[in-house]
């Protein structure tokens, strides 16, 4: 096969080709490694989606294994033994953990090979990949635009054809939103489906790993080799049934619900158009659409999320104190605090970026004595109400659908000065993790934005989000697959 033919293989097709002896795992790995080196770094107009790329092929992969040596790009915050795992932060620059995250170890056990680590917003805090100590990541559809975040490096690498597939993490939308902005598939599984052990934590009660892939089948295959309860993560439960690769092509009997809140949301016209086209398509495939689904507390989701997630983050990031590993700066002469406290202050001042510091302060405040009930306590109550909203909604419909993001990829720097406008990016993706539910984003078309059509005037990708009840992954993948086959989105045009 030629390089272009190999590149055209999805992750699953590549695995099949290796298993059938049509190509060696080493050749496939070398192809992607070369592409990652050419386009994945930050220099020479690269996308800067990789923070580290494998030096060479690891020991001969087992061609008969389920993933047959397939190269996987892994978000930087997954710990990988002996390989830099920096979570996009100066705090962990050059940090090489002594152990590998369970999700990555499971993929490796299934035969996958680590292609590289991908850039991300620092500690997964961001929706544009501009909050990264190692530079911004660029969107392969238009390098002047953001890839979304925080798993923007993984999304950009897959969209640009620099990796057959990738994994990331989603806390408030960090898999689905960059998948949408980059025109690929992103799945956030049910909370607890995949072990969090070895994922550098942002917000423990929300963080969940998942695949970023070219198509729904790839998402299902990677998911199948990531899920499972783990004795090292007390919150992991796995999935109740084995993941099945989807094959369904129609949607008869499937009830999709559109939250009434959509009507009041500020959605770009192009995005709304693509969303409505997809609804019409779903109807043609046999689905019924219910436009009267009420999620009355969902409008408070963003506010609750931006209390809870920073609160947990302020706690999770307390371990970065300069004592045992990572960045460390001693107190300067003349600092008010010297010695231990001076070291703490200089280390954290220097090691964390502005967005991380902003959230640590928000979270610390929300947990402070005297404010706890008003902020953290109230946000937890909102969270419970949102989960109940979904529960009621799923008595009427099988899935809830929304645009993944209210807008297509925006220009670098467009929102960095205004944190709240950046946070609004998470409007449609935040309610699901608050309720622990699975949700997938699939590309549903191209649209222009209020800020133009992008290069070539063809528009930029729009994501269609489908959310289901807890542990409904198999059915969710089937619906996504049927829509994907009908849409026929061509992601290859973003390949570099």
């Amino acid at each position: 096969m030629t390089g272009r033919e190999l590149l055209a293989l999805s992750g699953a097709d590549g695995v099949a080709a290796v298993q059938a002896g049509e190509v060696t795992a080493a050749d496939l790995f070398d192809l992607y490694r070369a592409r990652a080196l050419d386009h994945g770094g930050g220099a020479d107009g690269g996308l800067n989606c990789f923070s580290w790329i494998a030096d060479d092929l690891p020991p001969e992969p087992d061609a008969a294994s389920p993933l047959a040596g397939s190269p996987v790009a892994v978000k930087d915050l997954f710990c990988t033994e002996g390989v830099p795992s920096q979570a996009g932060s100066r705090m962990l620059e050059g940090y090489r953990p002594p152990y590998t995250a369970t999700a990555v170890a499971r993929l490796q056990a299934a035969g996958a090979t680590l292609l590289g680590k991908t850039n991300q917003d620092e500690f997964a805090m961001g929706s544009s990949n501009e909050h990264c100590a190692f530079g911004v990541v660029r969107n392969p559809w238009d390098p002047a635009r953001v890839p979304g975040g925080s798993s923007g490096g993984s999304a950009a690498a897959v969209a640009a054809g620099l990796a057959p597939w990738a994994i990331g993490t989603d806390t408030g939308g960090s898999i689905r939103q960059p998948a949408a902005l980059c025109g690929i598939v992103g799945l956030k599984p049910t909370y607890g489906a995949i072990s969090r052990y070895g994922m550098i934590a942002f917000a423990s009660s929300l963080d969940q790993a998942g695949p970023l892939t070219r198509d729904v089948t790839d998402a299902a295959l990677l998911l199948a080799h990531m899920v499972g309860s783990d004795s090292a993560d007390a919150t992991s439960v796995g999935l109740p049934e084995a993941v099945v690769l989807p094959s369904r092509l129609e949607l008869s009997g499937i009830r999709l619900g559109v939250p009434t809140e959509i009507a009041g949301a500020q959605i770009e016209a192009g995005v709304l158009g693509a969303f409505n086209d997809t609804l019409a398509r779903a109807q043609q495939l046999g689905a019924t659409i219910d436009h009267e689904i009420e999620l009355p507390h969902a409008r408070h989701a963003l506010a609750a999320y931006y209390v809870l997630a920073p609160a947990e983050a302020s706690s999770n990031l307390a371990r970065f104190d300069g004592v045992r590993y990572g960045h460390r700066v001693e107190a300067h002469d003349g600092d008010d605090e010297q010695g231990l406290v001076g070291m703490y202050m200089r280390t954290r001042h220097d090691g964390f970026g502005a967005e991380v510091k902003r959230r640590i302060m928000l979270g610390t405040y929300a947990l402070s004595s005297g404010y706890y009930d008003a902020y953290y306590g109230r946000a937890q109550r909102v969270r419970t109400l949102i989960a109940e909203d979904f529960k009621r909604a799923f008595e009427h419909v099988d899935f809830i659908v929304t645009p993944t993001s209210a807008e297509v990829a925006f220009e670098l720097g467009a929102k960095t000065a205004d944190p709240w406008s950046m946070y609004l990016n998470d409007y449609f993706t935040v309610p699901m993790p608050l309720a622990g539910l699975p949700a997938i984003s699939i590309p549903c078309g191209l649209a222009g934005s209020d800020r133009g059509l992008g290069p070539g005037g063809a528009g930029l990708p729009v994501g269609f989000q489908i959310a289901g009840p807890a542990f409904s992954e198999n059915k969710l993948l089937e619906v996504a697959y049927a829509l994907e086959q009908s849409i026929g989105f061509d992601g290859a045009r973003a390949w570099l």
Partner: protein
Amino acid sequence: MAVSAGADAASAVSYEPVIGLEIHVQLATRTKMFCGCEMSFGDPPNTHTCPVCLALPGALPVVNELAVHLALMIGLALGCELAPRSIFHRKHYFYPDLPKGYQISQYDEPLCRGGSLGGVRLHRVHMEEDAAKLIHMGASGRIHGSEISVVDFNRGGSPLVEIVTEPDVHSAEQAGEWLRLLRVTLRQLGVSDVNMDEGSLRCDANVSLRPAGTTALGVKTELKNLNSFRFIEAGIRAEIARQEGVLDAGATVSQETLHFDPSSGQITSLRSKEEAHDYRYFPEPDLPPVAITEQMIARARAAMGELPLDREQRLQQAFGLTAERARALAFRRELGDYFEQAVAAGGDHGATPTELLQTLANLIAVELPPRIGSDTDPFDCSVTPAAMLALARMLATKQINMGGARTVIERLAEHGGEVEAIVAQEDLGALGDGDELATVVAAALAAHPDAAERLRTGNQKAIGPIVGFVMRETKGRADGSEVTRLVHQQLGL
């Protein structure tokens, strides 16, 4: 107890100390609270660590099930109410001995509430993890002024149970006594080494004073890390005296955390209320709630065995022992077990006379320990329970006296053997009511005519030289009371 305050007792107010205790108990698990690292003491630094207890990025805690089991045993032993669902919280502060920047502890939903032990009510019992050990290199031994501080994470993440009492203790002595009761109870349960030297039992005390006869609580101070029974009592005593001084001077006690220096007796402030940490507690999202099942409670109950206070009562009731003997046996489990095995060696104890049981208890609780080493487990020495019963029988039937019995125990401790054989071999048998003793007594009276005369006229003390003569002649084998009886008989008294 009320202490009088000030030098001029007539005009001074007398105060009642009100004391609550917080005890940290390290649980005797094989591994740490939230990871698989082995528990250790005295091993080279940082040899029992892993990503979890070093708080490496991405590591997560998992609750040690044995620790929950042991904590449940403590809750049951102390009569606590067990929460069917309790949760862990994160308690935040920055310090190098706390690698995560927070301690995983229990806050407003602890495993156990209420209960009591020895007349002191308990507030709560909860689970948490220990901090690592910080070693300050330098002259002062404290973090200020030290050249360098190093951390040993071997202890970090060890499972602890914190036991908090209600303020039901009213003197330093009572605090010490109650802690001893708690220690022996925990030791009996087998849930901890309860060794204060090694830090597996640690105590803080909350102390306040109030005018005697009043009920409102005064301002309390917290005395930290009183790490021996002696220091606990000395520290509390010193703090009571300090607060008396403050109150007598017309000032008010301020709420603060204090450090007691046992070498100087000085109390210094660690931090005031204003400097108190805001721990920013919130529910630990990495751990699901601890759900207690009926099976877990049944398992804990089955593992408990008899508690010291219960055993003390049973020994008194079943064997007619005095409270003092019963406590001595009940509070050292191995002595109690040894005693009950000795009783069993004689068959049905119901048929054993109470006097013999008392003699046996006395031998085992009082005479045996100093002759085998006071900390030695009697089961580890060559004196068998059956031999102690045989010896008690000889004592009860006056075949040997106490002096002879002590010698027998020494011989048994040295090389074991049969009691009767040792008595015969060393000629330790008591001279009972036979003619031999009567002859010696007659000789004694003849040798001390003045004493005999004084005794005859009512001076009881005069018997001393006569008995002394008999004991010398018999090499101590005579029974004292039998000698007295014979003296009186021969003098016609």
